[in-house]
């Protein structure tokens, strides 16, 4: 509280700039601690997902469900994306952001089909 005749400057004005920087770095350090805590505790349980994958033999993530070659890209064949007609272009937006499946790319091992 200010006494009569005395004026006390606000906190940010009383600190030296390097002390203010210390406060900012302290906040970053707190953020770093948050990151370390997040890394240390595994919040996401995979039990049910792993059990389903194992018992049902699932092979793909359910990220895009518009077409079979997007729902199961690892099982797609050469004709999946143009399945309707030889010249019909792919019309799903997700297909523009998905590359060809791994087994249709050049691989270091001999092809099996």
């Amino acid at each position, binding site marked *: 509280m200010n006494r009569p005749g005395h004026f006390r400057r606000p906190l940010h004005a009383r600190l030296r700039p390097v002390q203010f920087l210390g406060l900012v770095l302290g906040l970053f350090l707190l953020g770093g601690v948050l990151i370390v805590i*997040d890394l240390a505790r595994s*919040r996401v349980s995979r039990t049910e*997902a792993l059990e*389903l994958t194992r018992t049902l033999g699932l092979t793909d993530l359910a990220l895009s*469900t*518009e077409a079979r070659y997007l729902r199961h890209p*690892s099982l797609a064949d050469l004709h999946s994306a143009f399945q309707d007609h030889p010249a019909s272009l792919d019309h799903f937006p997700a297909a523009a952001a998905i590359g060809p499946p791994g087994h249709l790319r050049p691989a270091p091992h001999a092809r099996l089909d």
Partner: protein
Amino acid sequence: MHAWINRQSLLVDYTLSALARHAGRNLAILAVYSCLVFVLASTMLFSDALRRESRALLSHSPDVLIQKLSAGRHAFLTAADVERIGPLRGVSRIEGRRWGYFYDPAVRANYTLMAVASDPPARGSIRVGEGVARLSGLAKGNALALRSPEGPLHVFTIEGVFREESSLVSTDLVLMHPEDWIEFFQVASDLCTDAAVTVVNPAEVRNVARKVAERLPGSRVVLKEEILRTYDSLFDWREGLLLALASLLAASFAVLAWNKASGLAADERREIGILKAIGWDTRDVLTMKLWEGALVSGCAFGTGLLAAWIHVFHFRAPLVAPVLAGWSVLYPRFDLTPSLDPWMLLTLSFLTIFPYTLATLVPAWKAAITDPDAVMRGSE
């Protein structure tokens, strides 16, 4: 040592005071810089976490998957085909899987209908993924009516709904009794969609796959490693796509940094001239400018990275998830396990902190080595 620390703290004092004299401009640079780091870090953190998740979940996929082809297109495997594979040495288990796609016009989404061989739902009952339940507004105990491709309407009771934690693999799944599946799709009982093979020795997977291809000439064999590689390349592709778009932001920031590097403003040059005139040597001026670049870029990096971490692992990355994970009518809701790749962190810090610091240092060096009188007069 104490004297050195004291000297540096006084230099930082002066640097921060100089930055505060142009607070608006410097805060704007900090904000843009932080946004750039935020976009890059969000993209890298999300795609890295998704890649790890896919590897962890799909590590339990079948060792070998066999599909039959007819005229180059997928066809059903027969029970006889499956029996030809069973006796192969190295095969511990082979199971014909029955599954297919179903388009529900009521919600305009595709489901994956799968018959469960072990511990199936009761006849007339199904287990569904959380996405199916969410989209159709149903819960355990409710009825779900599906019109089969042959015409008849089938009404199933939802026996259970999978939890959100497994939605990455189960969101569109509808699991049913094998006889219900056969009746729904009107497929012969000795046919299956594909066959999943478990191999005893992981080192023999390729040999088993080669023998399968020899025994079933019209088949295609997919290995688990190819499945995993598909997802690695899928996320690499999408990450590259988003980073290419973010490069537009990086390019505009590079123009700003280049503008700084091409020369100092008149008042900045005069300031350096005055400092030299009152006794600062070139080393002190350069140290001060180095602190300026390091503080701005370091704060931007810290702010951007923290914001990206919270955005990806606490808010499910709404800004980058649609591009990196995909989008469809039926979309999984999932959390990712936090992960931080040290190389990614190093690359990001090098690409963001180093160029800006250098851009601040170079013009200051040019002014610092010039005669103070000439600098203050503005003749250089």
